[in-house]
């Protein structure tokens, strides 16, 4: 094989080798799985039903004096 042939093979090998060095910059985001535990009675209630009571409680107890 002449010098040009060796050079071509080396270039192809280098290109193929370097292409393996590519790193995906995208972040892998793991989504939470579907809850597999027992049902919470709090989940069956409408949060809007307790919203008013909790807001009232907040006004009584936690607002600045």
């Amino acid at each position, binding site marked *: 094989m002449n010098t040009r042939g060796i050079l071509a093979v080396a270039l192809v090998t280098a290109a193929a080798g370097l292409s393996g060095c590519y790193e995906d910059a995208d972040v892998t985001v*793991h*989504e*939470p*799985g*579907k*809850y*597999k*535990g*027992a*049902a*919470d*009675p*709090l*989940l069956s209630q*409408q*949060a*809007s039903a*307790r*919203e008013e*009571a*909790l*807001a009232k*409680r*907040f006004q009584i*107890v*936690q*607002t*600045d*004096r």
Partner: protein
Amino acid sequence: MARMKFLCDAERCIECNACVVACKNENSVPWGVNRRRVVVLDDGVPGEKSISVACMHCTDAPCAAVCPVDCFYTTEDGIVLHDKDLCIGCGYCFYACPFGAPQYPQKEAFGVRGKMDKCTFCAGGPPADNSDAEYKKYGRNRIAEGKLPLCAEFCSTKALLGGDGDMIADIYRKRVLKRGGRPQTWGWETAYKAS
């Protein structure tokens, strides 16, 4: 829809630890487990600040994302809870949580972990509301009673606020405006200050 959140105002926290005591007492938290703790920044240095930290009930909770048994769930109003019957105490959630909220009671020798325990926003867990089973495993369910977490309600300086995020943000914004500027407990000046 309200989203339940905690906020600790570092300008008001006096490191009295009443929130920690209130939490432990209300929920009968076992020895060695702290659902809430007070962290002091620049302890002993003039201008030191304290903040009370527990589970922040993240909107996109990393603990739930890494749980191999999918024992986490989020209520409609944003409270992150878990099922202890399903939890295997693997500790992944502890590594994922940026606040160090998940705690594990040590059950045996050689550091064998028990089921994970964390702040429930005083909302209990899967068993029937305010049943003995719920109280033993998760503590008091004050949310079902129309009350807010005791740690926040107990705070004498109103540094720790817990409730609807919008209401809390409104109070905090007014405080910052009254003080005349943004606190530098966190932020650029703290991150890049000469040590």
